[in-house]
C-alpha cells in the first residue's frame, strides 16, 4: 500500500512536470518536432539591419512564418540572403513583395509580405524577387537634419 502511494505521487509529479516542460518548449519555445508543416523560400535584401534569426514573417499583420537564417551571398553582389520558412498551405505568388519593417519606432524588426496579383506561385526553395530593404532611421533623420530632402 505504501509503495503504491509513493508511486502515485511520483507519477503525478513527473506527469505535471513533463506537461509544464512540454508547454514551455512547444507553446512558448516553439520547438518543432516535425519540420513538415512549413516550406522554405529565399529573399535577397540590400540591407536587413536589425533583423534577427527567428523574427516573424507576416502578411497583413498575421504571423505566417519565421526567419530561418540570415547570410551574405557573394554571388548576388554581397546582398543579404534571408531564408524564410512559411506555413504550408499558404501560396505565395511570384510577385509578392517582401520588406523589412519595424514594430513601432524601437520595436523588433520583422518581414512583411505584400501578396501580389500573379497566378504563378513560388515553388518551395524559390526566390522572392521584389524586396524592400530595412528603413535606416539614422539615415532618414540625418537627411532631414542636413536638409537633403527633395
Amino acid at each position, binding site marked *: 500500500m505504501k509503495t503504491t502511494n*509513493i*508511486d502515485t505521487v511520483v507519477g*503525478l509529479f*513527473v506527469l505535471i512536470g513533463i506537461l*509544464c516542460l512540454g508547454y*514551455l518548449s512547444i507553446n*512558448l*519555445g516553439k520547438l518543432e518536432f516535425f519540420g513538415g508543416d512549413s516550406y522554405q523560400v529565399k529573399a535577397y535584401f540590400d540591407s536587413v539591419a536589425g533583423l534577427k534569426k527567428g523574427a*516573424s514573417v507576416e502578411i497583413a499583420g498575421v504571423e505566417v512564418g519565421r526567419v530561418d537564417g540570415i547570410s551574405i551571398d557573394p554571388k548576388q553582389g554581397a546582398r543579404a540572403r534571408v531564408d524564410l520558412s512559411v506555413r504550408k498551405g499558404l501560396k505565395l505568388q511570384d510577385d509578392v513583395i517582401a520588406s523589412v519593417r519595424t514594430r513601432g519606432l524601437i520595436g523588433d524588426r520583422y518581414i512583411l509580405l505584400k501578396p501580389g496579383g500573379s497566378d504563378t506561385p513560388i515553388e518551395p526553395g524559390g526566390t522572392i524577387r521584389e524586396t524592400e530593404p530595412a528603413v535606416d532611421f539614422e539615415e532618414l533623420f540625418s537627411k532631414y537634419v542636413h536638409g537633403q530632402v527633395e
Partner: protein
Amino acid sequence: MTHVIQRLGAWTIARVADLGRMLNFLLYAVYVCVADPVRPRHIIKQISFIGAKSSFVIVLTAGFTGMVLGLQGYYTLTKFGSEGMLGVAVALSLIRELGPVLSALMVTGRAGSAITAEIGIMRISEQIDALETMALEPFKYLVSPKLIASLLALPLLCAIFDLVGIWGGYLVGVRLLGVNPGAYFGEMKNSVEWQDVYSGMIKSLSFGVIIAWVCCYKGYYTGHGAEGVSRATTGAVVLSSVLILIWDYFITSVLL
C-alpha cells in the same frame, strides 16, 4: 610568528585537500551510477522526497515571485508606456534566470539539508561503516539514488516554477493592474525562444548535480557527534547555495 605561518599553511593544505576529495567524491559517485545501476525503487523514493514533496513550496514561491515580477515590471514598464511587454519581462526573467535558480535554492533548503543530516547521522552512528563491513557499496545506496533523482527532479520542478510564475504574473498584471491579456501572452509567445527554455533546463540540470553532490559529500564526511552533523548541514546549505549562484553566472555567460 612561525606559529601563525604554520597554521596558515595547514589551513591552506586542508582546504585544497578538501577540494580534491570533493571532486573525487563526484567522480566516484558518477562511476558507481554507471557501473552498478541503482534499483529503480530507490530512485523513485528519492524523487518523491526531493521532487514531489518539494512541489508545494515550489508552487508557493513561484506564485509570489511571478506576482512580484508582475507588479515591479508593471511599474517600470508603465513609465515607457509599454505595459504590453509585461508578459515578456515576466516570462524571460523566470525562464532564463529565476526559475532554475530559485527552485534550486528552495530544494537546497528543503531537501539538501535533510540529505546531509540523514547521511551524516548514518555516518556518526556507524551505519556506513556497517555497510562497508558487509562489502556493500555505500555509494550505491546513499549517493547514487539521490544524484539521479535530483538530476531528474530539478528540471521538472523548474518547469513547474516557470509556469506557475507566469500565471502569478498574469494574476497581478492582467487581473489586478489591467494589462491586455492578449498582449501579455501574445508578446510572450513572440519573444520566448526555444533557446531560452533550453538554457534554463541546462542550468537546472547542473544545479541538480550541485545539490546532490555537495549535500551528500558534506554528510558523508561529517564531523563527530551531533554538533558535527549540525555543522555539516549548515555547511552543505551555504556551500551549495553559493555554488549555485556562482555557477549560474558562469553558465549564463557561456550559454548566452
